[in-house]
């Protein structure tokens, strides 16, 4: 881990001026007919309209995604072209598993602070409903002679022969499994719950709180302002998140069966669900924001990415990335007014929180004498998180940045710490500071 402390940028500063997302809906439901590009189109067009941003000022789109469309993986550029923002709006797409959205934003922020850009849109989207079924490589190779060149009847026979037995060539269902370990993410989280002694009760309690806080944020209208309504191709209008349950309770969650292990503690209720959706923010150099008449909401005091061994505790990355971001910001956890963590699984968040509060972890893994600190539940995920709201992989980062930037501005608080775990043993974190 880097020991260097980065001072807040003195020269150019990238500021968040606005953010918006689509409703987050369960996979294979309302957004079934919208792929990740269409979802991106929906959120970016709404964001441009809401901010009355003149497309001539937009220089680039940086987009994050996990399930990228095979034939058009540069989603960022496709969005710019679809929306006719102008050929000058260049774009690139980044992927860092569940941290892809935050990656897109920090990439754009870095480009602005480097002087490469003044105005960019950054965000991400994912449509689990439109994940492409993968044909086994065996089929692809067998079919090659038919696809490229004049096939003779003998070729067809040869292809057929190569495709036997049939069970080996059927398309494989996509699943969230680690390539190196083959372990499904929920199994890894189950393992973490077990190893860090996170009880079922604690997980259900955390999940219930996520739902209640998200529901309260929606009911008060606070979150609603961050959600754009979306017209689907089949003529419906989607206006609200569909996963959040205001009426859930610890008792109800306690009745659900474990899904990843026979005597496990992880259930559909205390895990995030497969979700379709998109989110985006407008980033500008502070100077340009002010000259165009926008109010800067927040800027990045620091950010950090980290990796842990995916075969050990897959989703422990934030326990390294969050302290690293704090160290770079020259701030302590105690100085954070808000902490927002992506909730892949309640067990994962609680494991990370336990490590942040552990002096033994600090000594053994961070080389520090004292624990990073306890996170006050009153400051953590004040509007719930991915368990209640859903988790379109690439969109979560921009959702979190939007909610925290707005909150810093409106509640007159100063610092927010973000933490995101991601497949591959990755962790991401950032410290946002209110822009005065």
């Amino acid at each position, binding site marked *: 881990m880097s020991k260097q402390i980065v001072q807040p940028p003195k020269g150019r500063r990238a500021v968040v001026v606005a953010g918006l997302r689509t409703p987050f809906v369960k996979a294979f439901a309302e957004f079934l007919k919208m792929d990740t590009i269409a979802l991106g189109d929906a959120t970016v067009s709404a964001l441009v309209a809401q901010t009355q941003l003149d497309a001539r000022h937009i220089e680039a789109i940086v987009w994050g995604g996990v399930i990228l469309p095979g034939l058009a993986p540069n989603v960022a550029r496709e969005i710019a072209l679809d929306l006719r923002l102008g050929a000058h709006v260049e774009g690139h797409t980044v992927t860092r598993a569940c941290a892809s959205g935050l990656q897109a934003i920090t990439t754009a922020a870095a480009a602005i602070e480097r002087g490469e850009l003044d105005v960019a849109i950054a965000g991400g989207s994912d449509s689990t409903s439109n994940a492409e079924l993968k044909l086994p490589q065996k089929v692809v190779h067998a079919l090659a002679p038919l696809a490229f060149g004049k096939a003779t009847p003998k070729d067809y026979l040869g292809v057929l022969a190569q495709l036997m037995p049939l069970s080996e060539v059927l398309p494989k269902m996509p699943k969230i499994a680690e390539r190196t370990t083959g372990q499904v993410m929920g199994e890894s989280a189950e393992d*973490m719950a077990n*190893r*860090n*002694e996170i009880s079922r009760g604690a997980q259900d309690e955390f999940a219930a709180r996520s739902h209640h806080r998200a529901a309260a944020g929606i009911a008060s209208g606070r979150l609603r302002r961050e959600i754009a309504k979306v017209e689907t191709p089949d003529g419906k209008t989607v206006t609200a998140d569909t996963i959040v349950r205001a009426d859930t309770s610890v008792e109800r969650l306690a009745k659900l069966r474990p899904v990843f292990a026979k005597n496990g503690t992880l259930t559909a209720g205390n895990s995030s669900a497969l979700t379709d959706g998109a989110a985006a923010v407008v980033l500008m150099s502070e100077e340009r924001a002010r000259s165009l008449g926008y109010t800067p909401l927040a800027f990045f005091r620091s950010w950090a990415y980290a990796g842990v*061994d995916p*075969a*050990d*505790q897959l989703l*422990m990355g934030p326990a390294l990335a969050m302290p690293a971001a704090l160290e770079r910001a020259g701030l302590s956890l105690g100085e954070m007014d808000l902490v927002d963590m992506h909730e892949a699984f309640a067990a994962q968040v609680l*494991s990370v929180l*336990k*490590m942040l509060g*552990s*002096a*033994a*972890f600090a*000594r*053994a*893994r961070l080389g520090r004498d004292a624990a990073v600190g306890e996170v006050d539940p009153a400051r953590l995920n004040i509007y719930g998180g991915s368990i209640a709201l859903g988790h379109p992989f690439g969109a979560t980062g921009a959702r979190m940045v939007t909610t925290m930037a707005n909150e810093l501005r409106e509640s007159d608080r100063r610092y927010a710490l973000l933490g995101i775990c991601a497949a591959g043993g990755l962790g991401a974190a950032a410290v946002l500071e209110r822009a005065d």
Partner: protein
Amino acid sequence: MSDFLLENQAARKLIQTLGLPLPVPTRLRRAKGPQDERPLHDDDVVVGAAPGGALADVLARTLTIAGASAWVTTGELSAAFAGPGEAFGRPAHRLPEDGLPDGVRVRALVFDATGLGDPSELRALYDFFHPLVKRLLGCGRVVVIGRPPSSFESAAAAATHAGLEGFVRSLAKELGKRGSTAHVLFVEHGAEDRIEAPLRFLLSARSAFVSGQPVHVGKDVRAPEDGHGPWVRGLAGKIALVTGAARGIGEATAELLAAEGAHVVCLDRPADDALVSQVARRIGGSVLLADLGVPEATATIVEGLRSRHGGVDIVVHNAGITRDKTLAKMKPEAWDQAIEVNLASVVRITAALLEGTLQDGGRVVCLSSVAGIAGNMGQTNYGASKAGIVGYVRRLAKHTTSRGITVNAIAPGFIETRLTAAIPVVIREAGRRLSNLGQGGLPGDVGEAISFLAGPNAHGITGQVLRVCGGALIGA
């Protein structure tokens, strides 16, 4: 018993399936690929200690970081394991009064005997192991840790700790049929932190064919200045010389050292150019051709290592020959060749390399032989050369401590190689069976032991002979 039934895997499987009484040895659990960060990943290990044990903290740290889930027997151990357990998400369990819960079987049993002072206290061994030994999984591990008997003023204490060796050697014989092994570490005062590497090796699948081994862990070798070396790709940036690298143990060792990141200089006779070149190409190493039977080889090696690699960090003297004949019938050339290649050239080359070619912090590993040490019909020349190696590493090790260089010997037992394949089948099968594990080892088993001794954190081990023999019944 025909050769077919003994060596044909399909035939063995069939006999096993039919439940016929052919004693088929346990298939040993072996490690695949290069060293892991956590060689004991998810392994259950019971850890016990006699009162006054000095190793609670280092055991807690070592086992937890290596990925083990510990069951501990004392409050002191519980306290020591709490911190690492929390940091690495491996909370230790307190072993219940009535032993392990039903159905729980464990990979390893570790006992810290450093606190023992009087023979009557050896009872602690019985009390700890007696109820647990049946709960050991197949290919399990037992490690007892004591102090070097010679380190005590008190003769009673010396007797107590010397007793540990007899205990594990006997236990190793009892456990061998199921592929399990038992070892004792004798740790000098002040060398406690150095038990990490030997523990990881002896408790993991990498020591599959090492059985009943005492290992002395000392503090004399200067520790590396850059502190603790990495467990994964621990030999990155190192230059290793392996003699006799064209085939067998040398080839397996070259592969393993290369997998740990070393650039391996593969040495063999000019006649084996094609074979050794293939090995070198496969592992991204280089070739050095020299005939160790002639004294000029020394200059060739020193010059080659200096000019092309700027020196060498690891030297594995693996090349060896047999020229068997009973003494009365032995020709003088047979005597000379065996002594020259197996011992004299090792002494000469090592001495030359120590003059500015072998880097500080280096590793020298010489191949001895269990058969050679024990003495074998028709091998007076070979036995003299291989026993000579033992004397050589014990003495030389004392001269190189201040430079951080370790010097050790490996004594292979029955290893399945070209040499042993040439032995008549009945003798061959007897050779395999006459060991705790009831089978022969593979060249890779020897390579793993060499790779362990060559590792950056193995500086606690020097002047030792590590037997890789499955616990041969005849021998050292």
